[in-house]
């Protein structure tokens, strides 16, 4: 990438510097390189500028200045996203929210907390822990990712099987819309009513505006936790155990599966968790809740695992063993990064009962393209994460990886699944959207975006393919009727 003369003379630099100071604006290509990638290694884009407001008022002033200048922008948290959603090029300005990282208040009585959008996920749980509370959504990147980013992606995490995703834990947002208007979505003080604008905003991948503050619901720490490891000689047996546990009416806090290649990568790394290295699959099962009754559930889960063909099932004896079992899971991506310079972490959801056959299909696809796929995923809710380690300097390998990924996504769609369970569409999944949604459905999504951002300046080009964002096709009679009454309708578009 060569330096463009535009970036050094961008008139917006002076405007933004006046708001956030000279240390809050980056404009040199060398400085902007850091923001050219997110957690997915396959895309690189260089934004025009990056600006870092430190206060709520600065953030509001920045968004209003961008509106006045009619410049595209995208809000960015920690950049740990895995769909290329936090990337921008051309004229686009990155609004970095990392300096807005405070936990503003914790209300233990009502189990609510108010945070700034750049607050790191795990700092919220730390702030709440003194009250025996925590913030339930726990993406694997929770020690780095931000609450604002979690809202943009509607993030999940291992424990969302029992506790739900970000959508289920945010009660209100103050949002600055791309045109500079400040609005409140949701209701922190009682029931919400009217259109679910809060629900529409969560998961909108930075296309609807920027969260200025976030009110989240906190969850009581469980009285008891049991973490179990079951090992299997086949993925199918692990999948059978998964279905049996859920069907028995037990809702584990987490139910995670790792396949043989993942297990061996973890065990060969500094994150070795004591998984049996010769297993073809392990299930990490966590039960939590009231102390009474939990051991009955542990025994039932053990029995179901053995019935499905488990070689062994063990329960962590203490907190350190539990932490170790979890470390292997949470650091699995890091462990795989050790064996290849680049790692594509994919994300798709299938009906849980389709796990055995879709995993077999994935293995066949990997064999056909001669690549190594590691599967580490949220088995309980059918959320697959096939990962492919490769070397992007080798164009042949890169090409095969892309072909295999496409086939894997197709297989998941064909199984009745979704192309993303928690990572978002971003850039990476754009091509699959027309396979999952009809033109009418994609057009409806564009209509919703246009309500929040009629100029389409917020994170342009993401989530819905541009060609879907046509005007809605009305039946001719309707169009005629509409034209004749348009002037009398109460519209807010002006």
């Amino acid at each position: 990438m060569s330096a463009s003369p535009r970036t050094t003379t961008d008139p917006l630099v002076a405007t933004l510097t006046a708001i956030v100071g000279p240390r809050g604006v980056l404009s040199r290509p060398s400085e902007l390189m850091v923001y050219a990638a997110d957690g997915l290694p396959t895309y690189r884009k260089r934004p025009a500028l990056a600006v870092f407001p430190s206060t709520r008022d600065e953030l509001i002033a920045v968004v209003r200045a961008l509106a006045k200048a009619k410049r595209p922008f995208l809000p960015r948290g920690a950049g740990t996203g895995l769909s290329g959603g936090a990337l921008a090029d051309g004229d686009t300005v990155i609004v970095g929210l990392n300096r807005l990282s405070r936990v503003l208040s914790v209300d233990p009585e009502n189990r609510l907390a108010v945070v700034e959008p750049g607050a790191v996920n795990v700092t919220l749980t730390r702030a709440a822990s003194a009250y025996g509370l925590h913030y339930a959504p726990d993406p694997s990147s929770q020690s780095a990712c931000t609450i604002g980013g979690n809202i943009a992606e509607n993030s999940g995490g291992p424990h969302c099987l029992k506790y739900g995703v970000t959508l289920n834990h945010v009660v209100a947002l103050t949002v600055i819309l791309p045109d500079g208007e400040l609005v409140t979505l949701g209701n922190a003080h009682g029931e919400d009513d009217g259109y679910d604008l809060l629900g529409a905003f969560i998961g909108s991948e930075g296309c609807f505006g920027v969260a200025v503050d976030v009110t989240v619901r906190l969850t009581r720490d469980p009285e008891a936790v049991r973490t179990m490891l079951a090992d299997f000689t086949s993925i199918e047996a692990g999948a059978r155990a998964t279905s049996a546990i859920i069907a028995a009416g037990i809702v584990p806090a987490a139910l995670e599966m790792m396949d043989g290649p993942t297990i061996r990568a973890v065990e060969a790394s500094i994150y070795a968790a004591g998984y049996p290295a010769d297993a073809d699959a392990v299930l990490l099962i966590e039960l939590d809740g009231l102390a009474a009754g939990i051991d009955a559930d542990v025994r039932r889960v053990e029995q179901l695992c053995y019935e499905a063909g488990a070689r062994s099932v063990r329960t962590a004896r203490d907190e350190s063993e539990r932490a170790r079992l979890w470390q292997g899971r949470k650091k699995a991506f890091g462990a795989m990064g050790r064996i290849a310079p680049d790692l594509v972490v994919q994300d798709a959801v299938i009906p849980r009962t389709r796990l055995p056959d879709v995993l077999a299909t994935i293995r066949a696809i990997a064999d056909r393209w001669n690549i190594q796929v590691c599967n580490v995923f949220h088995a309980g809710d059918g959320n697959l994460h096939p990962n492919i380690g490769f070397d992007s300097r080798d164009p042949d390998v890169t090409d095969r990886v892309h072909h295999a990924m496409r086939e894997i996504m197709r297989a998941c769609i064909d199984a009745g699944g979704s192309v993303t369970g928690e990572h978002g569409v971003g850039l990476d999944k754009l091509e699959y959207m027309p396979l999952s949604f009809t033109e009418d459905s994609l057009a409806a999504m564009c209509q919703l975006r246009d309500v929040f951002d009629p100029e389409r300046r917020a994170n342009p080009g993401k989530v819905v393919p541009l060609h879907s964002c046509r005007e809605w096709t009305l039946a001719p009679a309707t169009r005629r009727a509409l034209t004749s009454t348009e002037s009398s309708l109460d519209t807010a578009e002006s």
Partner: protein
Amino acid sequence: MTTTSNVSAATGSAPTTTAEVREAVLDASARATPVRILARGTWLDAGRPVHAAHRLSVSALDGITEYNPGDLTLTARAGTSLAEIARVTGAERQWLALDPHGAPSGSLGATIACAAAGPLAHAFGTPRDNVLGLEAVTGTGAIVRAGGRVVKNVAGFDLTRLFTGSWGTLGVITEVTVRLRALPEVDESYAMPVADDGTSLGALAARLRTALIAPLALELVNGALAGRLGLSRRAHLLVRLGGNEDDVRAQRTVLSELGELTTVPADAWRALRTAEPPSAAVVRFSMLPSRFAECWSFAHGATASVDDVLIHASLGRGVVRCIIPYESAADLDIFLGVARSFEGTRIFERLPAVGWTDDVSPSRVADRLSRDIKHRFDPMNVLNPGILGDRT
């Protein structure tokens, strides 16, 4: 345009396919003739009056289209009754954990469209937390399929949440996919008489918030409602416990330290859901859970002038619901005057037509974003116009 109440409309149609729903909506849009959308018609007097000459019923869109017990998901057409869903899923020891007020003959489509929830919302949330996807026909005739059939899905902007609770004003919901849960091994309900003054209730609510229990429902009922449920005519706490035998027993022990517990039959919950008489105003007051006692006391004070008021509340959610029987709309004048002064959130479910005034029940869709959404999804304003207080 003929102006009618939201209960009656001159003519009606009952399409049997999504394509027919689309035809009906396109026809209404082309003629600029509003339609009142309904399903099984069990809750028709809810919401503000709709000015519509025609009814569009989805009651003929009936039946479960896909049910995979192993996936704990179910897809049904909008007119399918909750009772039918309970019957089919119950055979697999599963359930849809939504218990909106009204008869079980009510439909899935209306439950989702109105975001209607009951006591189980304490543990399982409201429809927005239980819907995985849906199909709807917008006012432009677009057939939108939102979300999907899997339990976790972030593909695209969230139209599922947008249609849920939109009261049919953005589109006619034709099919819904919901998340199911396994029925608990043990499911028991208990009643505990409680003192009905603000101080005692505040203390009880605080103790319940920290008690080591995880009830499926935790509902306070006033004396009149307790009487309807076969209990003595004094305020009671109703608790529904679910889980395995050990944990239900332990929770029962914790609760018995707070008061005297008696077992109540499971159908007490059905009696609670169907307690409202045909001619009643229904309103929900909500505040932060820490202000629960204040909210409860306000509801009592505001309804003091009316006989036989039924009041119940979700303690954990901080929502108090009042059912106020009336003979003529004038019986409600004092109540509505007081309700206006409530500091928290007030949501009216049912009122006589004259009661729906801006100062009593301000529109929740008057903001710019909501008006723009309505205009884009229903540009001819033919779908349930006015039911949410939108201007017609």
